[in-house]
Every structure is written in structure tokens, then in C-alpha cells.
């Protein structure tokens, strides 16, 4: 039984790792400059790789999931805010963005709606979903 449970957490870790490498690809390889909001989301995403990874490699799986959850939630909130900003529902003035790259700039737009904040929001949603599923199974 234990093995199946961990698949959820492995999935969450995989999403976090792919998101981390993906964001690094955008900034380091494609040379997109991350805006302030992107940095806040990175701050929430990058540690998940290590926290969940450590949980999977040791026996502290449940503990790692519990630590990762609030971090992922805070990242989700920022990604949601950023997505709303891109969608034009929140105006740029309300954004904590300094000189440089305004957070309303869109670098990519796949299929007409997939921008970087949308990818981030999807990533955090998947991670939160997987962690919640895992924790519910464990507590049962």
C-alpha cells in the first residue's frame, strides 16, 4: 500500500522539478528576464524540489508533504494573481513591480492562452492536488 501512496508525492515532485527546470530554461536559455512576481513564484517553487525530493528519498515522506503544502499554496496565490493580471482583470498599477520588466509583459502565449503564469498556476495546482490526495490517503 505504501508504494502506491508515494506515487502522488512523486508526481508532485516531478511537476515541481519540471517547473523549476522550465523556468530556468526561460530565463537562462531563452534570456527572458523574470519580473518581480515571477521571482516570488520561483521562491515558492524551487524549494519544493528539495523538500519533496528529500521526503521521497528518506522516510519523512509525510512530513515533507506537510511542509511543502503551505509553500505550494502561497505560490498558487501568486500565480493566480499573476494570471489575473495577464488576463487584464487586475490592473498593472496594483502590481509590486519596479523598473525593469513589468509583470504584465507576456513572453509566450501558446494556443492563445498558455502564458508563463498560466503554466505556473497549473504547476502549483497539480502539486497541491497531489499533496492533498496523498495526505488524505495517509490519514485514513
Amino acid at each position, binding site marked *: 500500500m505504501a508504494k502506491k501512496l508515494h506515487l502522488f508525492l512523486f508526481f508532485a515532485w516531478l511537476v515541481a*522539478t519540471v517547473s523549476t*527546470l522550465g523556468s530556468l530554461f526561460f530565463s537562462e*536559455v531563452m*534570456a527572458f*528576464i523574470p519580473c518581480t512576481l515571477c521571482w516570488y513564484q520561483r521562491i515558492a517553487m524551487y524549494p519544493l524540489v528539495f523538500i519533496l525530493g528529500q521526503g521521497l528519498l528518506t522516510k519523512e515522506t509525510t512530513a515533507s508533504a506537510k511542509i511543502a503544502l503551505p509553500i505550494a499554496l502561497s505560490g498558487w496565490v501568486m500565480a493566480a494573481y499573476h494570471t489575473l493580471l495577464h488576463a487584464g482583470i487586475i490592473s498593472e498599477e496594483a502590481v509590486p513591480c519596479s523598473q525593469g520588466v513589468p509583470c504584465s509583459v507576456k513572453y509566450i502565449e501558446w494556443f492563445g492562452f498558455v502564458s508563463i503564469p498560466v503554466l505556473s498556476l497549473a504547476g502549483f495546482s497539480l502539486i497541491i492536488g497531489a499533496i492533498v490526495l496523498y495526505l488524505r490517503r495517509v490519514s485514513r
Partner: protein
Amino acid sequence: MNQRLLVVASVVLLIVAFMFAAKQYQASQSAPTMSKEQQARLMPSYAPTLGPSDAKVTLVEFFDPACGTCAQFSPLTKALVKEYGGKLRLVLRYAPFHEGSETVVQMIEAAKAQGKYWEALSALLASQQTWVFNHRVFPERAWPVLEQAGVDIVALKEAMKDPKIQAIIAQDVADGKALGVSKTPSFFVNGTPLERFGYEPLVQLIKSYM
């Protein structure tokens, strides 16, 4: 145990995939092409230049007077013009990305009327730490620097009101945008953007046109 293997294997696989994708991407980007419209925007007649107009190689530099790397590069590019004696020309364009930079650009441009353009520019870049702190620009701290460089401050303040200066800055900013300038300094050698940033790559690119 299986799980550990899965995690470690995934890490290795993902990193290899990342490096492969990065290589692929760089290979697909390595041939920078500039349209004719972009080329036309590189060197407007008003832009300050150093070196003869019939030089074989023209180096266009987009810079921000408040940018630290620009201050470091400025003496290097000037030395290059000297070194190539008559074969290299430097054209300066403004990319005032820092808040407050524009005022300093106005000061430099206004010094032209007194024939003190290069004096004002090098004095400001050399003393950048006295008027830029933590990427914040304090233009009022630039006055004493200019005064020491022999600029008449009263006349300079009057000259700064010239609407032509605003127009020049606006044109430079617009051209920078059109040319994809997002960092300073940004270099173009005979119309080719410097791809890998650094002094050595810049010298190599210049040499390739000599």
C-alpha cells in the same frame, strides 16, 4: 529502494533533457538576422560618434549612464577606437533603463552645446558610484562631477530645456526597443548584434570585420 532509484533517475533524465533542449535552442538561435528597417535604426545622424565616419568597422553601443557594466566598458571601447586608429568608429545610443537615468542623459546631451560632451560623459561614468547607489539614480549628485569636469552648470541647465534633447532620448529608446535591446551595454558591430556578452567576444566580433 525502487522509489529512490526512480527519483535519482528522473533527476538525471530531466537534467540531460534540459541540457539537450538548451543546445537545440541555442543552435536554432545562432544566426541573428536584422531586417533592413532595424539596420536603418542603428545610426541616426545625431548620435555622438568617436572615430572617422568612413571607418571600416562601426561599433554601436546602447548604454545607460547609470549602468555599472557600461561604466566599466566605456574606457575599453574608447581604447579600442584608439587602438584601431581610423578603422573603428564608436556610435553611442542611450538606453536609460534606470529610473532617473534620463535626467543624467539630458545633462550629457546638453554638454554637447559647450563642446564638452566626451568630458562630461567620461567624468560621470568614472564617478558613477557618487551618484548611483543600489541602482538608484541621484541626478542632483551629478552636478559637482560636471562642474569639476569644466562644464558651465548655468549654461548646461539652460541647454537641458531644449526639446531636441527629449526627442533624441525618445528616438533612442524607441530604436533600442525595435532592435531588441533589453540589457546594457548592448553592442552592434557593423549591424551584427553581439550574441555572447563580454569584452573578448566583442573584440573577436570587431576583428572579424577588420
